């Protein structure tokens, strides 16, 4: 698996920091040189966030066909209303720029899929026989809103975590550790992935240690 993974390296060949570049673009919306730099630095990131946002929402169609259009929409959102979003950016780190672009990309994907779903619903005609059959069986369809495959595991995990948090000797970080536990065991994140975010304030071995300790406590 490891050989199939690339670490994403942000392009940072310019003297201007990412946050400063974002702010400058917000001040100079029509500066082609500045926006050329923005595109050079962040286009791949925008593509990546769009790809991931689409995949997270189980988008199965042609990614290469739709992502460039959505990327254009990201740029539109950045500059619309006289660059309000760009000018509202207050981040100071490269991560804050990434998070900023990720949020916008996510929002663009969300809106696109919602609009597409609306169009599909309007175009969809359910045959009367299918509707009756579904009614007689009394079984909710897989894509109906009542169906929640994670409900059971969520309840179970809530009970477990209550125990974990209450018994964790690291009282100061009990909630964080419980969150890490859930992210790993319920949401499927590896310790490396969790440790890559500075907000958890742990290295990979630190995350592993937390997981090992909590696992042991649950087993007890």
């Amino acid at each position, binding site marked *: 698996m490891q050989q199939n993974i690339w670490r994403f390296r942000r392009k940072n060949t310019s003297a201007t920091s990412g946050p400063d570049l974002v702010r400058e673009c917000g001040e100079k919306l029509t500066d082609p040189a500045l926006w050329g730099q923005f595109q050079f630095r962040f286009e791949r990131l925008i593509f990546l966030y769009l790809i991931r946002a689409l995949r997270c929402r189980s988008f199965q169609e042609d990614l290469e066909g739709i992502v460039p259009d959505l990327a254009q929409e990201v740029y539109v959102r950045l500059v619309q209303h006289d660059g309000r979003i760009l000018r509202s950016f207050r981040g100071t780190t490269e991560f804050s720029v990434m*998070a900023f672009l990720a949020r916008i990309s996510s929002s663009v994907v969300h809106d696109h899929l919602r609009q597409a779903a609306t169009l599909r619903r309007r175009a969809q005609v359910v045959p009367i026989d299918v509707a009756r059959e579904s009614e007689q069986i009394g079984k909710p369809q897989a894509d109906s809103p009542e169906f929640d495959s994670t409900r059971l595991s969520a309840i179970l995990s809530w009970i477990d975590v209550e125990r974990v948090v209450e018994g964790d000797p690291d009282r100061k970080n009990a909630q964080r550790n419980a969150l890490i536990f859930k992210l790993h065991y319920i949401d499927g994140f590896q310790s490396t992935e969790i440790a890559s975010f500075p907000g958890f304030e742990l290295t990979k071995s630190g995350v592993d240690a937390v997981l090992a300790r909590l696992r042991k406590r649950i087993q007890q």
Partner: protein
Amino acid sequence: MSGRDHGQCLKEDTLTDYLEGRLDPAVRAASEAHLVVCDNCRSHLGYFMRLLSDEVPVEEYTVLENLTDQSHRQRVSTTLRSSAALYKLLIAVAASVILIVSARFVLERSTEPKSAAEVVQLLLAQHRPFEARMSGEPHLAIVRTRGADEPGASYSLLAAEMTRLSANSHEMGRFYLLQKDFKRAIPYLEMAEREVGASSAVHNDLGVAYLESENATQLSKAADEFRHALRTDSSFAPAAFNLAVFYERAGATAQAETQWKVYLGLDAQSEWAIEAQARLQGLSR
């Protein structure tokens, strides 16, 4: 959110700020407490963790490379297109400049007088200096103004141009005559008149100078010049016109009427003829 109350659900920027470690300790603690119990928010946190992960699996990497290549090709193509468009624009601008300059050159050359005679003709085409008719003068209505006549041209510059164009004495005389500068016009015209084979036009114009100078001693000389012109060329209409004007001013109404009729016999169609007809009618009343 789960049953227990752990505050409001977290906003997107709070989630990403949490991942960045930017949150205030109190807010961070409250957020963690919420995230532990709220599956929805934790799911949302996980979503941003997946989005922001710095690991790129091979399938993502392939798509990303294709998209980047596609974008790069598009940019290069756009640059080339805009370069080509710029090149075309430059050619178009250059062509337009050449065309305008050429057109102006041709037009200026075509409107630029090539001879002193043309300078005089152009000036005569702009305004009629007096009642009498100079040779070759196009018909214009007489505009009477209260103040001094404004010729509307820089005659000092034009005089230099006349010299440059090697104007002869007739042309110089006409040039000053149309400015009503009789003191300069008459000597030139008299000089032209003394030349062997002086044309009807020269006699006519000298007669006009005499007539319009309003010098009583020269009025009779004016009539002589018009008659001389008509002797040289009996169909020379301007001289016939001017002779009629001379008779009018002299108060010889009958002779004036006759002369206008003679004139109309020579020219019944032009605007000068219309004026002549009007003056004849005026005398008949």
